[in-house]
């Protein structure tokens, strides 16, 4: 099953690269002046390997079975959802608040106790903020805490 997915995605990617590179303007007649030349070589090799992988999988008669671990997928969805919300909130809320909220929920999601989450969330956020903005001079977004 895995080989089928990898092979078909590989074929898809190489097809995309091949057709997208048609639009590149060519400045001269030589191969070195053709911006599409190198991506197309890569696309060609990738396509050949994908076909090889697919043929190999077919010959081994790999079974096509789809197994999903529902609990795992839900957890993964929560994890990514939390991460994306965090990244979206950093600029409007500011780094400190967004990170404190994120660490609180993430510790919890990863199996920590509520007490751990409460105790550690703010210190982690503050320490990272201090480390980056004062020691390493990275201007982290302040968001609604503009006064600091």
């Amino acid at each position: 099953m895995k080989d089928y997915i990898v092979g078909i995605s590989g074929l898809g990617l190489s097809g995309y690269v091949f057709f997208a590179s048609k639009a590149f303007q060519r400045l001269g007649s030589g191969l070195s002046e053709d911006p599409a030349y190198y991506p197309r070589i890569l696309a060609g090799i990738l396509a050949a390997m994908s076909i090889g992988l697919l043929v190999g999988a077919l010959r081994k008669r790999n079974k096509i079975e789809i197994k999903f671990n529902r609990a795992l997928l839900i957890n993964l969805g929560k994890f990514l959802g939390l991460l994306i919300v965090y990244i979206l909130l950093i600029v409007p809320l500011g780094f400190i608040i967004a990170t404190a909220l994120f660490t609180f929920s993430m510790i919890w999601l990863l199996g920590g106790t509520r007490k751990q989450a409460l105790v550690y969330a703010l210190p982690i956020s503050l320490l990272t903020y201090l480390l980056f903005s004062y020691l390493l001079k990275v201007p982290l977004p302040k968001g609604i805490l503009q006064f600091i």
Partner: protein
Amino acid sequence: MFDFSLYTAGLPLMGITTIIALIGGTLTGIVIGALPGLSAMMAVSILVPLTYGMTAEVAILMLLGVYCGANYGGSIAATLVNIPGTPSAVMTTLDAYPMAKNGQAGLAIGLATMSSAIGGFFSVIVLSMLSPLIARFALQFTSLEKLSIAIFGISVMAFISKGSTVKGLMAGIFGLMVASMGFDPNTSILRFNFGSIYLNSGVNFTAAMIGLFGMTEIMLSAEKKAKKVPEKQIEAVKNPFACFKYLRLSLGNIFRSSVIGVIVGAIPGAGGTIASIISYAQQKKISKHPEKMGQGAVEGIVAAEAANNACTGGAMTTLLSLGIPGDAVTGILMGAFIIHGLQPGPNLFNTNYNLISAIFIGMFLINILILVLGLLGAPYFAKLLKFPRQLLNTVILVLCVVGTFGVQNSMFDVRVMVVFAIIGYIFTKLEVPRAPIVLALILGSMMEENLRRWLSLADGQYWAYFMECSRKTPIAPIILAITIFTLISPLFKKTKVFSEDALDEYEEINKKNS
């Protein structure tokens, strides 16, 4: 008269800041290495953004400290909880864990520390002697040779990675495709920017690395239930200094294993894991008591640890003299060089003589630090294993996000990082190795530039020009021939001896032990 200036020119750079960075880096490396699930690759990629404000020599030496420290630190978790703290400590678990179960955890960690430090030391000597010579030779390389070395590196990486070589190569091609995004190097025509100006100069390397090796690792480790740490052994890390009783007996073993480590490390693509597998197997062949290996034998620990730390010098030799990373971690290190405006490769010996010298001196010091910090700190590092997993993972997630943001103060990079984390996760689930992507990302632009330079020199007469180049120096065709041979060798032989697949055999011994 022999010119020693290469070994002393760096001394003025070793100021107090550099030394502090060196100690801090090595200590951080050991700690990260000791924590299972946090690899050297992850440590270096997350810490690269922290070095932006530093001068080049401070930054590079700190990261080298992290690299070597993490390589050694893996042995601590291997000894105490039977989980390699970093992948290259896999072979150490075989003997160190049984020894710890017999109540000799201190001795096991001591032996690992001693052989790591001596192996590392040996490799620095080789590095400092060989790399100037190779660099002088490599200065004559033309685009064809550079191109073939890059192809060789990515192919070897694909071959060595666990699982199918074809999938490894596909991962490499994927990395090369990503590296070709943005302005075309010859004509400045935009390619694959998906309509976003942020992608005009391509994908940020550091963001991609942090995603692939920082965040992906956390996603994978969050899935697994953390192994309960047996309290008793952690209390029992006593008297690591006992290891010196075995020093005289083990010298031959350390020397052999170090040689294997340096050679494997120097091969582009091959790293510590392979080195320790080969040296362990070698030791088993010549051992007087091969049946004891895997049940807590001193020689097993020594062979595995000396080899995997000797790799560091070997990998640095290829990086400094050829500009090709010897393994995935040095690939990320190469990214750090570039961020600080340095292009690793033979030219570095002319343009940054002092820095090269400082790297040699720094790596000597790092290995002394490993010995001192390792022996004195063993009981404390052991306590780290009790640190709650979920806190650690959360902190690393935050560091991944801020670190990526800090690269160029861009939230777009953070999004790129998350995309690569998801790609890395899917790749792992589909059993496609991630390591070839690093090498491809870092070598991609160099590969394309050299390919097209060569094409324009050939001026339409490709075959004739290839033959002409090969007559001048046969290096390129030889490298290409070795590459092809490596890739088709599995067709002739069933087992890949020189690959991480060999681990499966040892994993069974490991299961029996625990």
